[in-house]
């Protein structure tokens, strides 16, 4: 099992944002976390990649605990989020080279990986540009390449298609599928239900820090007797309201 969360919880002050989350992502699958704003997707991912300490429970990447064996865990994963920026004054190759060095690749290995990634992500036309001049779609391609510089078996992508146009998000989705086909394990979050439906092998529906539904898109739709994931999503919200819960966190 490549990504595992065991009784993972996070509290900010007194507020529990992620509660006793049990999650397993299997090798070579694309797992999608969906849920309303403020459901705790980003917080969960940050704990999984060792950027935040869990309040309780633990997270494992390829068997390495993200707190006690942080550097082993981090060496196994690549991370991209919609908020990820690039070093505006570096060129894509300089950026890739920097991360290769940070991940401890030798100079030769680094050059080789860079060349491979430039080819894989069609970065050749952008090589002379500084990152500050790239468009959003081009940035996202560079970011994905950057996350893959050390050839990690696990990828964590927080809203990788946010803000992209149709064409660019399709490119990113194709890339994600290709990465899965290279036997990488991918955990992603998204607000686009159709995208989640088309792209993910399994989906976890996160609601106020709890996993309320999990399974393949088809299975979830069948269970909720809905024609689309979007319907499922809306129906779940209604249910929560009907159960007397206050408005979901983040719905303002």
């Amino acid at each position: 099992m490549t990504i595992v969360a065991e009784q993972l919880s996070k509290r900010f002050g007194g507020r529990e944002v992620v509660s006793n989350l049990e999650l397993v992502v299997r090798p070579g699958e694309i797992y999608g976390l969906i849920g309303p704003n403020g459901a705790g997707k980003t917080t969960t991912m940050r704990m999984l990649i060792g950027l935040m300490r869990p309040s309780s429970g633990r997270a494992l990447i390829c068997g390495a605990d993200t707190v006690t064996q942080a550097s082993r865990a981090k060496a196994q994963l690549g991370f991209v989020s919609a908020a990820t920026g690039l070093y505006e004054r570096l060129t894509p190759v300089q950026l890739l080279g920097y991360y290769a060095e940070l991940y401890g690749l030798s100079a030769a290995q680094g050059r080789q990986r860079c060349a491979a990634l430039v080819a894989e992500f069609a970065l050749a036309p952008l090589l002379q540009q500084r990152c500050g001049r790239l468009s959003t779609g081009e940035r996202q391609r560079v970011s994905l390449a950057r996350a893959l510089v050390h050839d990690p078996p696990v990828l964590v992508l927080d809203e990788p298609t946010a803000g992209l146009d149709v064409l660019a998000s399709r490119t990113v989705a194709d890339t994600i599928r290709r990465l899965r086909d290279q036997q990488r394990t991918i955990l992603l979050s998204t607000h686009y239900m159709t995208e989640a439906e088309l792209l993910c092998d399994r989906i976890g529906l996160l609601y106020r820090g709890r996993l309320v539904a999990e399974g393949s898109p088809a299975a979830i739709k069948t269970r909720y007797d809905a024609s689309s994931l979007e319907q499922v999503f809306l129906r779940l919200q209604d249910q929560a309201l009907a159960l007397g819960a206050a408005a979901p966190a983040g719905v303002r």
Partner: protein
Amino acid sequence: MEGGRIVGVVYRKEVLETLRDRRTLIVMLLLPLTLYPLLAFVVAQWVGVQRASGTRVPALSLGWQGPAWGELRVALGAPRVVEVHDPVTAARALRAGRLDLVLRLPDDLRPRLARGATVPIELYRDDTSANSRAAGERVRRLLRRFDRQQLARRLAARGLAADFGAPLQLRQHDVALPGAAGAQAISGVLPLLIVLMVLLGAFYPAIDLTAGEKERGTLETLLSTPAPRLALIGGKFLVVATVAILTGLANLVSIGLTLLLGFGPALRVVGLGAAVPWSAVLGALAGLVPASLFFAAVLMAAAALARSFKEAQTLLTPVYLLCVLPTMAAQLPGLQLGYGAALVPGVNVSLLMRGLAGGAVAAGPLLVALLSSMGYAAAALALAARIYNTERLLFADEPRVGVAEGGARPSRRAQPTPSEAAVLLLVVLALMLLIGQPLQLARFLPGVLLTEWLLVALPVLVFVRWAGLAPRAVLSWRRPAVASVVGAALAGGSGWYLVAVVVEQLQQRILPIPPELIEQLRRTVFAAERPLALDLLALALSPAICEELLFRGVLLRASNVERRPWLAVLLNGLLFGAFHLSVYRFLPTLLLGLILAALVVRSGSIIVAMVFHLANNAATVLVARLVPATAAASAAELPLSLPHLLLASAVFGTGCWLALRARPEAAPGTT
């Protein structure tokens, strides 16, 4: 060790990025390299003006009570005299500023003098008025001279030698080396200056490498790598410290160069000579490293607290001031580097510099100061690393920079930003002051040629290339209408006469050019031994092309000329006037700049301005050559003949009309 390797990796990358940051480069190199030459230059000019105006006696309004005896009046510089009848009126007039001084003389002034008696003179002044004080000073001096003359006359009448009345003759000799006083003054402020500059240099990188990285959303990915946080902070800290050290070095080098190269001598001429205060420079150099390490660490720790660039700036401003305070305190006279002071952060490094400059620091306190400042730096760094481990400060907000700021790649721009243009102007100024001026002092004509082409035109072209600008649009490089060119040639060729008889007459009223300067100009600029063609090339053609590229090209386009053309023209004229770095040439060059800018705005083509500039300069050179008696520098002495004036005005008017009438077919530069 892994940590050490990461420090190196981060260091290399951050240095590369920092060297590509314009703000940092400006503070680190450009500011120091322009600041001191410019300061020295302004001071030299200012003192020169003071000198020149000092020789001119300002009018003195003198109240007079008693006989207005001619000989005494002449001795007092024949001032305007007002009769005052009683001390009360006198006092009132003085306090109201209507009179500068009032003299009261006895009625029997002349008989008393003739009989060899003493004449009591009463002088009323108002010491709260600067005018009155200055006038009093002068009148006392003149009276003293008059007094000596009278004494000499009396001695002669009695057959005594003139020096009979002067038993002692005091001659004074100052053995201080020339410039030592200036050097002393400079070494006093050097530590403060260097600390200020080091802080200034570290300011932006400290923010950029910490809060800036948070704001741009690169910190998260950086922290998702296995690199240890302390190593990341360490690498960043070393970069900030390096920039701080380089800033300090650039300042020291610039101060040294300014004093050594051009302006030491220039300042000395006006009596402000400063030798290079070597011991102070060495002291500052030695203290530079500990000071930079300490201040860089403090600024970084503070900046790490902020989550955005803006927040960091707000936060760091008081920290900056807090850092300056101990440095100011260390300026207090009598304060020395003892064991106590060596433990006070900030104070210790400044005292260290001061002490090393004086050459007298005990080894004990020196070591303590070094160690304690390193200790404080390490503590500040540890704090910064802790902050990097605080989730609250790391992730409290998530600006989505990548999404908000994307967009299509910009195509080549037709307009540089004002700040880009300012940088270009500063670079050119720095080059001119540091290289051009000394070159021209050494060999005038080759100096001018090199200055124009290599220090003005070349930077402009490099800039256009580097900033990714569309050259034709930015430089207004378009084919002009034939009428504009003809008009510009006519106006440029006749304008010099109007300038000579009108503007320079005016100039002579407001700010007369000192005769030495005119003489010097005549000798260097309009030397008759050179081939005329060479003079025309260096003094007419080259400025017409190179200076136009800078002023009517890049600078004009950067000043939003489309939106507010007349403001842009005004600004352009002012800059052009100031650029010539001489108070005496300001007025004529301002006018020239205004006309040239207006020509480009109206015609849409820089070539029209070039033609005008060429015609104007060529005419000046030719007149100076062909009518040597009226070398242009003293053109004010030209006879103001009405027919000539009318003719020149007519030609100038026609030329301007022709040149300004032709409108560009399309708005320039908006392609």
